[in-house]
């Protein structure tokens, strides 16, 4: 039964990511949303209490800590008030909230525009530069090793459990291998899993990225979205999308403004935000808004100013053309008088 499920998981294919071309390394390339499979038992990672008490386990635990409290890197690698788990829900374990167990298998991935392959840790660097409006830690840094180790452990522990090997520890990988990602040719399954799990198509595990959302009946409207926001979102995320601190600690994420993701982050795209919102909001009670409302509110929050795209070269129309020509976002477009991006907040960590 479970074997069949996993085969299904591993063999399922979908459209390859549609890569956008540009001159600057863009780690926030759009990943095609996945058609949501009904009644599928998604992948279940191991409970965190089973992280081993050894040096490898320490890296995994550190990765988890960074996922849920990314703010410990504020000012060093992080420029806003967000934490990874704000989008990668349930500490990066929730299906269709960009779970790390699936992302791990999707890298390294070839990028047409650089004509090269980006590995898993490089993809996380993209998150720091754009989603966290910060400055990425270096490859080989304890942070990237830890976050890679955590993602790998989620995946491998879940696979072993799925095949009845609950007692088998997750095989250790060295730091370099950890950062490569599970789609690398050198990635091997532990002995007993060989031959049982097919690795072909591994980059398309169901639950990966975000679930595909129907197109709206009417074009997404920031104006209608403003009403949806006021009715359903503002109570938690704030009238100005500023999120919420409790005792000085960021708890509820900022959706726009200086403390949110910048114009280069994947979430600035209306389609990406719409599917995330539809599937996951409000927290713990996903699929509450209808399809049109999800698109409209995504259009509203993504047509407010946020930190500048770090690839901005001083010319808004040139930057728009180079990096936002084909995305479903508002960068460079005029919504309330001025083109978005013309009054953006500073990109990156501010002193």
């Amino acid at each position, binding site marked *: 039964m479970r074997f069949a499920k996993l085969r299904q998981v591993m063999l399922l294919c979908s459209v390859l990511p549609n890569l956008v071309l540009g001159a600057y390394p863009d780690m926030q390339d759009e990943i095609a949303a996945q058609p949501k499979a009904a009644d599928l038992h998604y992948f279940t990672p191991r409970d*965190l209490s089973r992280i081993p008490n050894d040096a490898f386990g320490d890296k995994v635990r550190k990765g988890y800590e960074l996922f849920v409290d990314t703010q410990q890197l504020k000012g060093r690698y992080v420029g806003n008030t967000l934490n990874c788990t704000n989008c990668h829900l349930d500490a990066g374990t929730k299906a269709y909230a960009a779970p790390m167990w699936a992302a791990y298998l999707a890298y390294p991935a070839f990028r047409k525009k650089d004509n090269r392959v980006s590995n898993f840790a490089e993809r996380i660097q993209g998150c720091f530069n754009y989603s966290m409006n910060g400055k990425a830690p270096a490859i080989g840094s304890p942070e990237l090793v830890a976050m890679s180790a955590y993602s790998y452990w989620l995946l491998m522990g879940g696979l072993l459990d799925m095949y009845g090997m609950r007692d088998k520890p997750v095989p250790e990988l060295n730091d370099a291998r950890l950062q490569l990602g599970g789609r690398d040719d050198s990635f091997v399954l532990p002995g007993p899993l060989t031959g049982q799990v097919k690795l072909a198509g591994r980059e398309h595990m169901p639950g990966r990225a975000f679930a595909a959302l129907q197109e709206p009946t009417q074009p997404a409207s920031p104006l209608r979205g403003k009403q949806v926001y006021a009715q359903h979102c503002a*109570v938690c995320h704030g009238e100005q999308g500023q999120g919420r601190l*409790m*005792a000085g600690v960021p708890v509820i994420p900022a959706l726009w403004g200086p403390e949110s993701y910048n114009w280069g982050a994947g979430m600035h795209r209306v389609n990406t935000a719409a599917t995330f919102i539809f599937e996951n909001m409000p927290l713990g*009670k996903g699929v509450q808004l209808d399809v049109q409302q999800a698109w409209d509110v995504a259009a509203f929050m993504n047509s407010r100013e946020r930190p500048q795209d770090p690839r901005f070269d001083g010319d808004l129309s040139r930057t728009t053309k180079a990096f936002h020509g084909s995305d479903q976002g508002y960068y460079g477009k005029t919504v309330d008088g001025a083109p978005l991006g013309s009054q953006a907040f500073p990109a990156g960590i501010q002193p």
Partner: protein
Amino acid sequence: MRLVRKAAVLLIVGVVGTVCAQEMPREAQPCVACHGEHGMGTAKGPMLAGLSKEYIYAQIGHFISGGRSNIQMTPMAQGYTDPQLREPVAAYFAAQGKQPQLQLRGQRQPKSLAEQLYYQGDPTRDIPACFSCHGPAAVGGGPFPRLAGQQADYLGAQLVAWQKGERSGDPDNMMGTIAKRLNGKDIQALASYLSSIR
């Protein structure tokens, strides 16, 4: 003379920042019988100290509208339909109490079922971490109540009330939805854990 000294001590305590020495407004006096002098709670009523102003204000409204109901509180709340009466009450109790020692997500490995639910949730049951809305050490804020140090019996009863649909008024019924995924053991564990946070 004694009174002066007492006041001075209170003032110093206020400056130190643990207890706000704000004088109790007249409007809050009827609350004291059940909620205690600084809103610390009694056998007859839960703790109000440290709940956000916004939350206290909204709850009185829910007792007025029937979204919440309680044999004592429902009639009491009817006297506070006027925002000018309700506002000072909410502000006063919000400023009482002391902030618990903060604990962040991922700061330590959970030592109990309740701590695990609070800081990690249970993805297998679609229960998000309580932290996501109630914050570090359950301090709460805005529409989300502080849970730290609240009476365990009260917390347990509220979670059951959410489950049964006897309590409402939260944003989009988020709490009502999540409460239904908790079992009796979770509720007992959470109530006792949260009440012990100092």
